[in-house]
């Protein structure tokens, strides 16, 4: 980390921030459109969210409170590293509490707690182009977006139904933003797609390696692509969270022992902890309480 000895506030130089800021304003004005930007080398490898880090660095100020999550957790290596990076280069206040954060940088998840108007959600995006798997050539996908030619995308989703009896895509499920651009919310689970729709918070997306920034303004329609006979559906979980008893939240499977014991718990660790602090108890904690008594 000695390379960081002489850095500007939030690491990026002012010219780079201006360039990224201009791209962010265009992204807001053209919801779902991928604005090209001159992505910079960051002191962390690609795949560690350098696009999201650059967006956060360009908007961050001394009065912000930053939360960083990977999956739904604040304590994974990636989240801890990015949080430590901004504490070092921007001396910014950090939190794990969703409600206290003004900027939330995420990979994979959207917090369960409904976001407010004073919050910005910054996504780390590996592959921003929703049409890339259909068409590898950038010139072609750009043309498809320009002409609003999304027929192939629909065909592919429909083939998915024909083959699997349902749409098998569970992550990076494509959405249409403000009735115009098809956008990749990657790599969030499609469970979170409905949270993007008409959110009170501004949503910004940064793809470092692919050099793209895009946005969903607050209170904007975000519709998951689907078909009349096969409407969009999110995953449902059979049981509530084993720790806090929450229903209708995204759960992760946790293996308990080598005899096949397992439980399902909230992927959003802050949400789960907050509920337990409020006295909510799931099956597993109820069992432990009984055992202790």
């Amino acid at each position: 980390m000695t390379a960081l000895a002489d850095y500007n506030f939030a690491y990026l130089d002012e010219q780079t921030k201006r360039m990224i800021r201009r791209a962010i304003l265009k992204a807001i004005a053209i919801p779902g459109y991928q604005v090209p930007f001159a992505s910079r080398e960051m002191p962390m490898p690609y795949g560690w969210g350098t696009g999201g880090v650059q967006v956060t660095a360009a908007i961050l100020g001394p009065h912000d409170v930053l939360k960083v999550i990977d999956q739904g957790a604040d304590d994974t290596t990636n989240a801890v590293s990015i949080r430590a990076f901004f504490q070092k280069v921007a001396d910014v206040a950090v939190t794990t509490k969703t409600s206290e954060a003004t900027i939330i940088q995420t990979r994979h998840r959207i917090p369960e707690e409904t976001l407010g108007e004073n919050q910005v959600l910054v996504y780390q995006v590996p592959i921003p182009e929703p049409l890339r798997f259909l068409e590898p050539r950038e010139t072609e996908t750009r043309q498809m977006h320009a002409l609003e030619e999304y027929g192939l995308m629909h065909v592919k989703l429909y083939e998915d139904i024909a083959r699997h009896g349902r749409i098998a895509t569970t992550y990076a499920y494509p959405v249409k933003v403000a009735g115009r651009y098809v956008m990749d919310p990657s790599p969030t689970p499609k469970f979170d797609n409905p949270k993007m729709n008409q959110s009170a918070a501004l949503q910004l997306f940064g793809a470092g390696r692919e050099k793209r920034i895009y946005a969903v303004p607050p209170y904007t329609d975000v519709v998951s692509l689907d078909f009349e006979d096969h409407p969009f559906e999110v995953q449902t979980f059979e049981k509530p969270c084993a720790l806090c008893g929450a229903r209708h939240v995204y759960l992760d499977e946790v293996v308990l022992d080598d005899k096949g014991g397992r439980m399902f718990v909230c992927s959003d660790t802050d949400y789960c902890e907050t509920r337990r602090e409020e006295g909510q108890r799931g099956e597993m904690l109820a069992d432990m309480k009984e055992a202790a008594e």
Partner: protein
Amino acid sequence: MVATATLIPGFADPVFDAQSSFRAAMDALSRPGTIQQIGCPLTPPKGLSAASAALMLTLCDYDTPVYLSAALAQGAVPGWLGFHAGAKVTSDKSNSAFAFFDKSSPLPAFSQFSQGTQDYPDRSTTIVLEVASLEGGARLSLSGPGIKGANEISPVGLPATFLDQWRANRALFPRGIDLILTCGNRLIGLPRTVNIKALEV
């Protein structure tokens, strides 16, 4: 000319003043119709509102050709902009990344500015227009992305053809110009997505 212009200071704290001014611009464009405020003190060169001046220092540089209204182009602004932002002034509207207008100069048709291309709609001009007031004029209703239901503004000093011009601009989506109205140290953002209609008096 340049020597006197350089005497007018820019941001007192270039890093944090640009950051807070950017957040005002980001909030303005992501929540059209809300009135945002530049939080740092700034003495603009003659003819420019403090908010327009802050946006210049925050967003313009060597990479962004800047078009200036006739009145602004003749005053201290070009020298100030060059000294503090390193930005080049262009007389070609259709090649400008930003265009700044004082409140007295006539606003040319939006179609004379860069509207981007269908492939690259981001390659368009952002127009920053100073108006006599952001409130107290004829009521306009706004709807579109960034707005919960509808929002209302009542700026004073928009050209008579504004609503027709805006309708044509809106119809070009995803192409089109984005507009920021300023007065004093306050601003309103009108991205190309916003629908604007006059409310009956």
